[in-house]
């Protein structure tokens, strides 16, 4: 594939003596859909937090399109085009779904990318919601976020990221807590986004779904990278097998 969009070099992070991430290095190519798997507590969310500036690494570097973004503030990293979802979705509860999207649309990044156009923000927000599977002509986009079911909130979270017009999208366990049918309807959205050229880094517990769409998968265990291969081969890897069998069967049953 083409140029490298994200390059991680020797990342380390300790939490009070517990090693959360140990010497992790990898690269993400432009247009790639990279999966990251690992048993519970293997440091996946910490890795996302490190990449997006919510946690500062103890050592190591993160380069985004050749620029060193290690230790930058989260909003600066987002400004450069990396959007992320949160595992625990916490929308802006008192605002309606489409108003939730006004907030990223208000950022200087989006206004710059849209050439200063701002008056049509409501339409853009509704379009974005339709993109992630909200029913356009229903009342759902106008409902207060606190009254939406979990599956919608997860997709609202995805729309919040897309509003930013990202070049790299990081999904932190987007499918967790979603029902089978919700996953089935969200999967094509992600495939489509990737098909349109968006680079996606997907941290996921639902392996079957992930393996269906990912180009390449990295496995973590106890904070270290233990495998890096195409999805078809990753479960053949002895270290990965041991990591999953050694802890739990989660993800296999999805």
């Amino acid at each position, binding site marked *: 594939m083409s140029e490298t969009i994200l390059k991680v070099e020797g990342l380390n992070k300790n939490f009070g003596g517990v090693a959360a991430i140990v010497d992790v290095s990898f690269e993400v190519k432009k247009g790639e859909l990279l999966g990251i798997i690992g048993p519970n507590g293997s440091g996946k969310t910490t890795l996302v937090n490190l990449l997006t500036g919510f946690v500062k690494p103890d050592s190591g570097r993160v380069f985004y399109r050749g620029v060193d973004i290690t230790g930058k503030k*989260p909003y600066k990293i*987002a400004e450069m085009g990396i959007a992320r979802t949160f595992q625990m979705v916490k*929308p*802006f509860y008192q605002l309606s779904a489409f108003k939730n999207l*006004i907030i*990223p649309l*208000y950022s200087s*990044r989006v206004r710059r990318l849209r050439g200063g156009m701002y008056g049509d923000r409501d339409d853009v927000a509704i379009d974005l919601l339709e993109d992630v599977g909200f029913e356009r002509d229903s009342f759902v986009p106008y409902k207060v976020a606190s009254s939406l079911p979990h599956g919608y909130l997860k997709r609202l979270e995805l729309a919040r990221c897309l509003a930013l017009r990202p070049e790299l999208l990081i999904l932190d366990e987007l499918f967790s807590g979603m029902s089978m049918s919700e996953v089935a309807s969200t999967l094509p959205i992600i495939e489509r986004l990737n098909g349109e050229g968006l680079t996606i880094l997907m941290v996921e517990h639902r392996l079957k779904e992930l393996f269906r769409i990912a180009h390449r998968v990295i496995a973590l265990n106890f904070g270290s990278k233990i495998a890096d291969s195409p999805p078809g081969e990753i479960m053949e890897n002895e270290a990965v097998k041991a990591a999953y069998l050694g802890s739990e069967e989660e993800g296999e049953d999805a």
Partner: protein
Amino acid sequence: MNKEPIKFRKERLDRGIKARCEDIFALSSYREILYLLLPRVLPVALLLVFPLFKDIVGLYWEKVLVITCAIALLSLSWDWLASVGLISLGQALFFGVGAYVTGSLNYAFKWPPLITIPLGTLGGALICTLLLLPVLRLRGVYFAIVTLTLPLLLMRFIETTKILGGTEGLSALTPLPSLWVELYVPVFTLLICLFGFRRLINEDYGLVLQGIRDNDRAVMSGAINIYWFKTQAVFLAALVGSFPGAFMTHYYQFVGMPAFALDYSILPLTAAVLGGVGTFAGPTLGAFILVPLSEVLRAFGTLRVVFYSAILIICVVGLPEGVFHYIRRKYHQFERMVEVG
């Protein structure tokens, strides 16, 4: 025999007229226009004509109106901070700093109120924002702790360093030019701030601030510098909070340590909680209930503060909705009991 009593549940229905009026500005009758306008126009009109009847109601109650407006402005400023998720326990900070800046400018340079009040408001807001800047990086109760502490400490600071008149304060400041200025400036400022805040919080700018209250991390990952927005919000609140300080300094022709008094912290807070947090109209209403009440209870001295505290606890624990939400609900909705099957 198991005879269960019939259970009822309260059901609330929007009035038809409300459902039609909301967001759709196709009003078909005077009744609908009145329905929408009355709750807005009537209080404003009352407020505007009240000073005209100064000969009937007496100057004492006109003075109460000025103090009420001052407290209402402070509680508006409190509510503004609350809608960004910042809890202020020391509105006296804004009041006191605004008062002292105005007072010392007038005392030192003999500038007229027309210059010192705007300068005092602006200067006070700048100083307060700078003082609060370090805490804005933290979440949680730190803001409350620091706002509670600062007015007490500044009072001590003035007392010990004997600057700005020390315990005596600065007196014999320039009085305001006329009675009409005394009465109408606070009223108009209150109305401008009230409707300004109500408007601003529903603009996109206000949505960002509300987003910071609900989930600051999600706002940050939306490429928005939350610290900069919080700073702006604090500056606006400090502006609205410093104005009454600046104004009352010339009104009393005196500024002293009482400007940092606990009353200026707890009265706006009580007014906001009593009236209903998050609506701006609520806190204003709360101030118009509390301050006149507190004048009536003047004979009780410091027991009034105990009384405010009691109201605060009861409202926070038992009636978190607030008076304004209650009235609004009654105005917009029918209530009836329905049988629960």
